[in-house]
């Protein structure tokens, strides 16, 4: 069975600085998707960034980028130039590529951003 582990329950960063959130996963599949979702307080979860396992290039979305290490089964999220609005719970998630719709989440990392 696939599992997703986030070992940092809480992280903090100063505004304009860079922070990295860690995620590891376990799977026997060779192709799959990985996601980072953001859940602000009292608001819905939204997709931050996604990575296809068959792509070697790390995904980037503006200030958000990932470090995908397939052999190590590691998928970290880097937030550059942190903003107060980045404060939220961040969930790492895994999904198989075909014939399944199931997202498997990690336990989340609460990110605090200080001015």
């Amino acid at each position, binding site marked *: 069975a696939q599992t997703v582990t986030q070992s940092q329950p809480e992280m903090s960063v100063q505004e304009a600085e860079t922070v990295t959130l860690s995620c590891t996963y376990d799977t026997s599949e060779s192709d799959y998707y990985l996601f980072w979702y953001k859940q602000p307080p009292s608001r*819905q*979860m939204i*997709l931050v960034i996604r990575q296809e396992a068959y792509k070697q290039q790390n995904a980037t979305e503006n200030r958000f980028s990932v470090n995908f290490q397939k052999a190590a089964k590691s998928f970290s999220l880097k937030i550059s130039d942190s903003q107060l609005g980045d404060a939220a719970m961040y969930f790492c998630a895994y999904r198989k590529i075909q014939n399944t*719709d199931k997202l498997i989440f990690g*336990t989340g990392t609460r990110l605090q951003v200080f001015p």
Partner: protein
Amino acid sequence: DAMVIQNPRYQVTQFGKPVTLSCSQTLNHNVMYWYQQKSSQAPKLLFHYYDKDFNNEADTPDNFQSRRPNTSFCFLDIRSPGLGDAAMYLCATSSRGMNTEAFFGQGTRLTVV
């Protein structure tokens, strides 16, 4: 505009009294999910619909049921809520296919008294 809408945002129910949570979507997605999220825990999939096909997770208690009368609506029924069922319930939708993301509602926080 909200695309996945959950009602109510907050629900208080009595121990053992049936309760229904609702979810609607304007995205015309063919997959709808219900997740249970307890404090400081990962969202846990209860079940999902692919069109009218119901897919129950093996460890979802029988106390939880779901209905999807049409593409736009999906309901979560808890037949006899216990104190352990207090949680945030998240509805999400997606369009089956490659590389598709899930869109989430704001959730319904259920309190059992």
